[in-house]
């Protein structure tokens, strides 16, 4: 990935834009933004959910056309925004928030899709070279995976890798790489790997725009930080002049303390949720119980089975073993039965498993519990609107317009809609994968609060998360998974970030199956 071009002078930005605005109808998602990246610089872009980060990325990539009146230049050469081809040709490369992978196509296809496939006579794709190119690229990024498999079955790390590899592919090396929340679905180990990659690119003189809600990452990798709020530029500050509190203040306008859930008393009462002998994709016999009002965390490295526990218990994934709520067993793969029995579920893949596109926030929010807004036999729009407004406030959904189409919300706000949907329907047990995935730091606090309030009202939670801090803040008790089995349980004072991380890793090292092989 060494540059063959004359490098731009270190002072001249590789990308500079000014006055970039984008409106969706009357809503101004981006308001006259000015932004630049220098060669070899990592410029972080942060802001609350819906502040316009992804919109900015999509404008740069040509997915959205900005309002007229902007200026943009790449390596000093003026460019027009709004064309994907122009963006690619001038050397802008993207890893989008949703990665933009085509699930049915193979890894190699996805890597090469946007640029040219190597071809032989008659435009016939040279598969041998194509696969080698894709594999080499991934290899140089430090990943090795079978490039013939469809991306549908890939783990998040590998999906991210494919996204980055695709961005790096092409005849000319890029000027700027834009990473929109690349770590939202990554475990800690994956983040380190990603940073290695970013540093290598940096060394090649590539400018990187880095978007994340994980401020520790920002402090680790960024040279400068730009903060957006409601589409408006708040500040651009070198990282050295910032500390975490100051940055949080810039983002949300105040300091934030995530707190810690009060220890649960009376844990020995009969469990509400009881899971025995759970087998599913990546799970090899898991047992646990959850008592009323308890928040149980599921930790584990990627591939430990952590990702499938919630889905398997709920029945969105095939499973064997018994799952019972209040002593009544629930049949597998019957989500509607599970919900009747008192379960709720928020999957990690919200676009597929949660959100109903085209329907409004209101309709998405009330879907599983419509009885509360009935007047007689009919839905009462007034009641529904009143009910929904409360929740918009409570989880801080922006914009707080109940009639906004849910699929037009920013990623983090979509997550909040789903949380509100399930917290509102007051299940006995709510199963959540990655509860604050893509959620900004201000809203995280809000969400924790709401979860704690619900727990206080005897709602139990099973929370699987790749973020150990989150588990510590939220959970009464954390189960550590490794290779599909529960290898440890942490609670009380033993429940610390370090303890979780250590258990995850040692669990993986002392594998019970190892002795059998």
């Amino acid at each position, binding site marked *: 990935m060494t540059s063959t071009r004359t490098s731009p002078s270190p002072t001249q930005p590789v990308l500079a834009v000014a006055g970039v605005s984008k409106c969706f109808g009357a809503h101004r998602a981006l308001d006259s933004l000015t932004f630049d990246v220098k060669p070899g610089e990592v410029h972080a872009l942060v802001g609350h959910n819906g502040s316009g980060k992804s919109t900015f990325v999509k404008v740069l990539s040509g997915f959205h056309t900005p309002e007229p009146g902007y200026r943009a230049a790449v390596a000093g050469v003026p460019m027009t925004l709004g064309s994907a081809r122009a963006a690619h040709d001038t050397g802008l490369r993207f890893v989008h928030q949703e990665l933009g992978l085509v699930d049915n196509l193979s890894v190699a296809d996805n890597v090469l899709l946007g640029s040219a496939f190597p071809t032989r006579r008659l435009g016939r794709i040279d598969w041998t070279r194509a696969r080698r190119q894709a594999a080499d690229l991934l290899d140089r990024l430090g990943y090795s995976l079978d490039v013939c498999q469809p991306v549908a079955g890939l783990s998040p790390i590998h999906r991210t890798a494919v996204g980055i590899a695709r961005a790096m592919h092409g005849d000319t090396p890029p000027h700027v790489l834009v990473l929109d929340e690349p770590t939202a679905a990554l475990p800690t180990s994956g983040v380190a790997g990603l940073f290695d990659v970013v540093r290598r690119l940096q060394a090649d003189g590539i400018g990187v725009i880095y978007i994340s809600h994980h401020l520790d990452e920002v402090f680790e990798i960024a040279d400068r930080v730009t903060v957006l709020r409601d589409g408006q530029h708040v500040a651009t500050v070198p990282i050295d002049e910032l500390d975490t509190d100051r940055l949080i203040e810039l983002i949300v306008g105040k300091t934030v303390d995530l707190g810690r859930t009060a220890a649960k008393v009376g844990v020995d009462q009969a469990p509400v949720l009881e899971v025995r002998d759970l087998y599913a994709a990546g799970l090899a016999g898991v047992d646990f119980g959850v008592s009323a009002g308890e928040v149980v965390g599921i930790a584990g490295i990627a591939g430990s089975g952590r990702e499938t526990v919630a889905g398997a218990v709920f029945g969105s994934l095939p499973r064997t073993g018994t799952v019972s709520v209040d002593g009544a067993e629930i049949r597998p793969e019957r989500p509607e039965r599970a919900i009747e029995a008192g379960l709720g579920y928020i999957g990690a893949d919200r676009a597929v498993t949660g959100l109903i596109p085209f329907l409004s926030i209101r309709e998405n929010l009330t879907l599983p519990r419509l009885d509360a807004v009935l007047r007689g036999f009919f*839905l009462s*729009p007034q009641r529904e*609107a009143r009910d929904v407004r409360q929740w918009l406030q409570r989880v801080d959904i922006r914009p707080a317009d109940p*009639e906004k189409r849910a699929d037009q919300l920013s990623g983090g706000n979509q997550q909040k809609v789903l949380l509100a*949907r399930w917290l509102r329907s007051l299940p006995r047990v709510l199963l959540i994968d990655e509860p604050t995935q893509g959620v900004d730091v201000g809203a995280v606090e809000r969400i924790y609060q709401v979860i704690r309030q619900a727990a206080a009202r005897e709602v139990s939670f099973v929370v699987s998360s790749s973020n150990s801090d989150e588990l510590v803040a939220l959970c009464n008790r954390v189960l550590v998974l490794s290779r599909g089995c529960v290898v440890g349980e942490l609670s009380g004072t033993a429940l610390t970030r370090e303890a979780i991380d250590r258990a995850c890793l040692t669990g993986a090292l002392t594998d019970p199956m190892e002795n059998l092989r």
Partner: protein
Amino acid sequence: MTISRISPTDLADARPPEPDARSRNWRQLFARRFGGFWVLAAMVVVFSIVIPDIFLTPLTLQTTLGDSAITGLLALGVMLPLVAGIFDLSIAQVAGFAMVFASWLQERHAMGTVEIFVITLSASALFGVVSALLVTKLSVNSLVATLGVSTVALGVTEIIANGNAIQPDFDPSFVEFGRGVIGNIPLPFIYVLLIASVTYYVLEYTTLGRRLQATGCNPVAARLAGINTQRLQVLVLLISSIMAAFAGLVLATKVGVATDSTAGAFLFPAVAALFLGATQIKDGPNPWGTVLGVIILAVGMKGLQLMGVSPGVGNFFSGAVLLIAVAISGRGLERLH
């Protein structure tokens, strides 16, 4: 603990609560989703100028509504499953089956009105059952399943009709069912209005309606939100086949002669009206938009027929009106994507 700052979105929060959905629809109707109304108004004005004496008559109103009623019934019959994500292509041929079957029951077996009604509706519902089995149990795409069922229904109809034009002697009361008029409004169009009203209330104001919409927009997420999506799919396919049969009975009594080729011709106009309607009043397929679509196309056709232009011009015009209205209100079709 609220965040201490003021942003535009916070200000937006201070707006008074939204008025209820109904009045919002009426506001939208003259704001965002008005394309069809303008097209309709323009046509009425043009025809009133060109052929004032024969266009601006109660009879024109009556026959326009009457002629379009079958299209309307079928369009509404396609609409409901479509809201739930199922495209029922079989509806016109099932209507044709009902038309021929009911006429045949009368002509061959001299059955009474009630028997004819019950037997025809039940037999037609069987087509819905087959579609439903294919779609839910065998996971066949609904377009494919209903295309197959449509062809089978046509075959059965042809076998029953055996090539003949069946001329039944229905009870006078049953004939009124298809030919009656209240004021200047033909009964069949009143059925259209009634069915549109019921469908509207179900879709907008009941749990069932909300669930149907969710199923149509994202069946996986709907299922994970506790909706028994398969049961809903069975339900809508049953309802659409019964609505098709109802349309077929209206057609049988209205036309008075049943042939195996009568009903099939209504599929395209019905779908065109439905699609046109999906850009009107609100986003996506909806009952009143569908009725509006039916009326727009019917008024255009009527005017041209009264002007005596050749039928080719009629098709050219229908297509053009569909395209123009959709282009004006284009955004509404996002939901069809």
